[in-house]
């Protein structure tokens, strides 16, 4: 894989190549839907299989509705991921520092990821209501895992020779952490955050399905009942755009913070 932005040519490759592939797929889809091929194949009413052009139209017509709901979902995702970062770093640091904490929490952290969100989400809605807290909780629950594991791996990749060296250079436990361990773990932390921002929208949708009065997940749910298929696709496109934007933001932040690579 090429480093993003390493050279002029590679800078464009990562925009151009996926763009081309996407255009190709959308073109094929347009042909397949406007000729009615897919609808015929699956014996469906044509309005259930919207073409890219119809989806784009829906995207434009519903722009204020989509923006309103996207704002709701974006807030859930951002707060959820921020909580996940705080909790993930906290766990990773504590697990690295204290063996007992590591041994006690590791199996439970793994087990936390086997909790089916669809099961726990309605319970959380019952407990915390329709508002923001259950959404943040669910997103943080699925996002803290990659951040914890990646950061822990990063902290463990510290060269033991460097630690010895720092000890003879009079570094306290804290100084060793801030000057050697934390910077060493930073790239891994960012890897965890990148995974988190991509899976967070899925968490947001499940959380909204369990109970909400707004948000992109809520919109998809109500559109399912009304066979608003074009708008559902438009909503999914907005959700993907959110994930891509957060990913890009994370990569930018990473490049700003980790200047030595």
């Amino acid at each position: 894989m090429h480093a993003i932005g390493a050279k002029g040519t590679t800078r464009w490759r990562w925009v151009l190549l996926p763009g081309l592939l996407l255009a190709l797929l959308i073109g094929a889809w347009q042909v397949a839907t406007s000729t009615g091929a897919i609808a015929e194949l699956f014996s469906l009413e044509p309005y259930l299989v919207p073409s890219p052009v119809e989806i784009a139209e829906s995207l434009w017509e519903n722009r204020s509705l989509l923006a309103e709901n996207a704002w709701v979902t974006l807030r859930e995702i951002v707060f959820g991921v921020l909580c996940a970062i705080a909790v993930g770093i906290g766990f990773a640091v504590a697990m690295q520092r204290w063996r007992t904490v590591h041994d006690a929490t590791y199996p439970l952290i793994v087990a936390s990821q086997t909790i089916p969100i669809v099961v726990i989400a309605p319970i959380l809605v019952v407990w915390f209501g329709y508002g923001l807290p259950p959404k943040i909780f669910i997103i943080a629950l699925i996002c803290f895992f990659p951040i914890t594991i990646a950061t822990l791996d990063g902290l463990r990749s510290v060269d033991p020779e460097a630690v010895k060296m720092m000890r003879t250079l009079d570094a306290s436990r804290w100084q060793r952490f801030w000057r050697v361990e934390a910077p060493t773990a930073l790239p891994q932390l960012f890897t965890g955050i990148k995974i988190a921002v991509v899976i967070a929208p899925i968490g947001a949708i499940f959380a909204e399905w369990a109970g909400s009065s707004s948000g992109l997940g809520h919109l998809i749910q109500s559109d399912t009942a009304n066979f608003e298929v074009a708008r559902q696709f438009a909503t999914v496109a907005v959700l993907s755009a959110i994930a891509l934007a957060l990913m890009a933001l994370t990569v930018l932040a990473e490049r700003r913070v980790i200047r030595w690579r």
Partner: protein
Amino acid sequence: MRQDTNMKPESGQQGLSLTALQHSYGELETLAAIDLEVPAGGVVGLVGPSGCGKSTLLELICGLREQTGGRVAVAGHEAAAQRLARCAFMPQRDLLLPWYSALDNAALALRNQGLRREPARAAAADLFERFGLGGFEAARPTELSGGMRQRVAFLRTLVAGKPVLALDEPFAALDAITRGEMQEWLAAALRTDPRTVVLVTHDVEEALYLCDRVAVLSARPGRIVAELGVPARRAEDRDAAVTDPAFVAAREQALRALHRGSRGS
């Protein structure tokens, strides 16, 4: 050729004193009864086959590890924390921290000791000029050559202000020409800023050129099989020094001792 046991130091003496020092990892004995005296300002080389416990010995001296038997004293202090406070360790790889500039790397110990960034940098900057690193203060470690990185790493060790420097094969990763240059450089550095030095190396010539004395260790469990006096003692002209007949004879002697030791005599 063993150290005369009558020459034990008085307690409170400066320098380094190892007495019947022994270390094991569980069942595995790594060091057997090491006796070694290094006066303050003395430079002693440790050569020996791979895995003979040279690095373990350095860690014991620095107080990074506890011995399983015998005694080790740095300037008369035996407690590990006291040893740690008096020794600075330079690892084989430079281990410069890539997130700091060359100058900030060199100033690391001063920062750890509680100095603010600017005074710490100013103190290290003086040494940069003196040790031929002027102009590279702001360079990132990745922008420096191998020799330059090793210089910064040595300065980082020196700046800590410890009386004892523990150098673990500091130039092993460099090419032969750079290594020769760095040996000359280190010799000059020790002439202007004398410290008690324990130098672990694979390179007999390096040890004989840089040290006052060279201790040859046997294969595991490491014990000192020979201690050699040195003819050159950090002469300014390294090339002339290492081709001197007395130096060549000392090298032969050291290599023979090394061969005997590696067969596990």
